[in-house]
């Protein structure tokens, strides 16, 4: 049976970052930890009861800023998950953390609660860039946090944002080399994108700053893969780099279009049951979500059954992000639709000829050239 991946969303942050369009909220008056702990536990129990016992491969605490959670909340949720499902012996339990001292002081407690992998939101090692990105930590903090986390967690990743306004390739290479020297087994390296609804979106539209040109961004992307590879970190996904075996198992579940539960405000869920793919979206407003959970046991606001064509597209748009590409047989199984009805045969041939796609041992893989153009490739390839 397809193992589950469990995502838990903590929607609160100490401050809002100008680039972030995730479901995050700042509560000046403080957060009612007991209430949200109870609501998360209740929604998890509700979904578990509906699904029945299934193998559980990973848990991921995302946000928001989950390192602001009380360790006992994390402990309770991990314990609940282990009780509801059949946890794999090597179950991956990741928690996202910010490298401020308040939060890093709690890292050991999170480890004791069952977290075995941390993902730190470092974002940059450059003081000016950290200010631009609205982060609350400085570079020395970040380095200290990484060193501390490495001593605590067997597996560790951190995020950087590059292709920032005015950033040159040489400067990025230098910053990245410094980061690689600090890295453990995994890095997430994102090019800065401007998302609607963020402060950057408004400022960018006003012309307050400009992103690097497409060709420059493309060169920086290549430079990134090159530098990471030199340190033994392979680009296993568009923006994710890992030593072999150190890939994020939880995130691989998304990209392989596996089953995942999404618990908490704004969380998304996909579970295939009896041939139907059920998609759930939960209320984004934390207090409203909590109120619904308290009343109904869950905070879902949208529950739909995806069509085979939609499933095919989702499986492809996620799967081609991976260096391993997609296995047509798995895509067919997850979509409930023949591969030939998901991809356009003539365009597939053209894209293979162009060198954007290739067949590797029966898997369809986007080459690095194809992956860097994936958003343009998908509407061409998919029917």
């Amino acid at each position, binding site marked *: 049976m397809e193992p589950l991946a469990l995502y838990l969303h903590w929607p609160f942050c100490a401050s809002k970052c100008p680039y972030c369009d995730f479901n995050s909220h700042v509560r000046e008056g403080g957060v009612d930890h007991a209430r949200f702990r109870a609501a998360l536990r209740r929604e998890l129990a509700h979904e578990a009861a509906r699904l029945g016992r299934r193998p559980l491969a990973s848990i991921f605490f995302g946000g928001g800023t989950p390192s602001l959670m009380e360790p006992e909340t994390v402990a309770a949720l991990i314990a609940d998950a282990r009780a509801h499902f059949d946890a794999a012996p090597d179950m991956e339990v990741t928690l996202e953390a910010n490298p401020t001292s308040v939060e890093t002081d709690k890292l050991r407690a999170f480890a004791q609660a069952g977290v075995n992998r941390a993902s730190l939101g470092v974002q940059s090692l450059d003081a000016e860039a950290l200010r631009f990105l609205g982060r609350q930590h400085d570079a020395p903090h970040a380095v200290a946090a990484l060193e501390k986390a490495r001593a605590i967690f067997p597996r560790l990743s951190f995020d950087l944002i590059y292709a920032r306004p005015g950033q040159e390739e040489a400067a990025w290479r230098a910053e990245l080399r410094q980061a690689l020297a600090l890295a453990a087994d995994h890095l997430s390296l994102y090019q800065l994108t401007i998302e609607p609804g963020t402060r950057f979106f408004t400022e960018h539209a006003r012309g307050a700053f400009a992103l690097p040109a497409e060709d420059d*961004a493309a060169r920086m992307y290549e430079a990134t893969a090159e530098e990471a590879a030199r340190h033994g970190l392979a680009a296993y996904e568009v923006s994710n780099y890992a030593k072999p075996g150190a890939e994020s198992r939880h995130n691989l579940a998304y990209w392989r279009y596996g089953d995942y539960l999404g618990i908490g405000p704004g969380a*998304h869920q996909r579970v295939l049951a009896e041939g139907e793919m059920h998609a759930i979206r939960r209320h984004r407003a934390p207090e409203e979500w909590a109120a619904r959970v308290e009343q109904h046991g869950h905070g879902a606001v949208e529950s739909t059954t995806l069509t085979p064509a939609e499933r095919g597209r*989702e499986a492809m748009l996620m799967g081609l992000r991976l260096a391993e590409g997609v296995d047509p047989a798995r895509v067919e199984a997850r979509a409930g639709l023949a591969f030939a009805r998901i991809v356009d045969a003539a365009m597939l041939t053209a894209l293979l000829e162009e060198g954007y796609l290739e067949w590797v041992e029966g898997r369809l893989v986007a080459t690095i050239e194809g992956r860097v153009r994936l958003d343009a490739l998908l509407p061409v390839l998919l029917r």
Partner: protein
Amino acid sequence: MIQAPPDRAPMTDTPLNRIRNFSIVAHIDHGKSTLADRLIQSTGTVALRDMKEQMLDSMDIERERGITIKAQTVRIHYKAQDGETYVLNLMDTPGHVDFAYEVSRSLAACEGSLLVVDASQGVEAQTLANVYQAIDANHEIVPVLNKIDLPAAEPERVKQQIEDVIGLDASQAVEISAKTGLNIEGVLEAIVTRLPPPTGDAKAPTKALLVDSWYDSYLGVVILVRIKDGHLRKGQKIRMMSNGATYTVDQVGVFTPKMVPVDSLGPGEMGYLTAAMKTVADTSVGDTITDDRNPAAEALPGFKDSIPVVWCGLYPVDADDFDKLRDALGKLRLNDSSFHYEQETSLALGLGYRCGFLGLLHLEIIQERLSREFNLELIATAPSVVYKLRMNSGEVEELHNPADMPDPTRIAAIEEPWIKATVFVPDEHLGAILTLCNERRGQQVELTYVGTRAMAVYRLPLNEVVFDFYDRLKSVSRGYASFDYVMDGYAESDLVKISILVNNEPVDALSFMAHRSAADKRGRQICEKLKELIPRQLFKIPIQAAIGGRVIARETISALSKDVTAKCYGGDISRKRKLLDKQKEGKKKMRQFGKVEIPQSAFIAALKMDA
């Protein structure tokens, strides 16, 4: 002296010597509509509260652009200084050469014209074209100098110009400001004392000129008439002298400018009739209307048909709008028989219509009305003139669409239409205008100076004018040049068809005819423009211009270098998929060229560009 508007049916048996029928000719913006407003207002014809700017221009598009398309008329009562009350019928006419035909029939319904000239601008190209038509119609002409209140007004210089350029005595020109209302009385008196009354015989059989017609959603077809002899009455059985069709008159009336029914219309009068006609196509402008039982012996001299001189393809941006476009064209045609359309199919743009227009302004107006009144998003292909192909077989074929060009080896010669263009321009920009005309294969006919302004008359191929000539003219003269033209026959020319190929496939909608000497340059321009307009894609795209199999210009759009979402996790999947669904939907607006899909918007932009 100014009397209150009549609140019920006005008298209709006005003695001929108390009627004046007149039109106003002017260059655009010289104040024709403002003067008309002022005349209507000062005689109290329309209550002040009902006044809006440009009373007579009823279509939004007319009011906004300051041009008049359909003929309009308004009946004004004026008590003159001689103590008598006169009926003044103002016939508003289109001011643009595209509508020369409409101008001529409107002028034929009047005996005199006011020539309005901006006292600061002086005579312009349109002034000339229109006043010559009025002179051709045997009109008595009263020059009126408008905007006399402006500091830049130079009435003496402009009077001299009117005498020098047009050859009219301007010593008695009426100096006014339509805007402030200054000396409107002088204009009214001049109409009464200097323009001739109409002639006609009240006892003769009915003879009325069909000046214009349009469709009114309440009344059906409304016919604008000018009575020459006899009367038109409600209930009368009338006959169209062109085809013998008979109708019973439902209603006759006058425009105040609201439509007001009257019992009958007598000689010299202008007004309307309705007679249960279904479509405007049942009426033929220039026709003579007579009494069925007591018909006139001879019809009035008619007008010659207007023939489209500029053609272009009109396509719905959304293919689903094709039916809507067909209905809209049908409705527009109801009121504008000068415009022609026939269905055609383009590989690049899908199903659409090839449409014929009287000129570029006519084209623009129809396009704008389609988008405004029918809410249609349209693509127009580059306008083309009508070429005459003399085939080896001896036959002559007309070519409306470059895409339909037959195999050149079957063609003995190609003839293209020429125009005679008049340009008025301040001295300092004359050089640039002459260069422009020469670049466009122009032949100078005449060059004269009037004060600090020059008048250049050129013969030009119409083909060179439909392609961005107006815009260039305006830009090289900083907006100071005025331009007008008349058709001037056909002449043989060394013309070639240039095809545009995208990803090695021809884009029919972009093919065009050009003189051989300009082919390379034009081909290069359009390739360069397309390179800018077509977004980079997954594949590199060659763009070529070719004459037959010979490539004359080439550009390549390189493949895009990066386009991928940086972050994509479990929560992003719905959004990403919906975006993908939308992109797939958007592909309906794409045109496939081999493995490359070009957004239709790129072709639209390419077709909109003028250089």
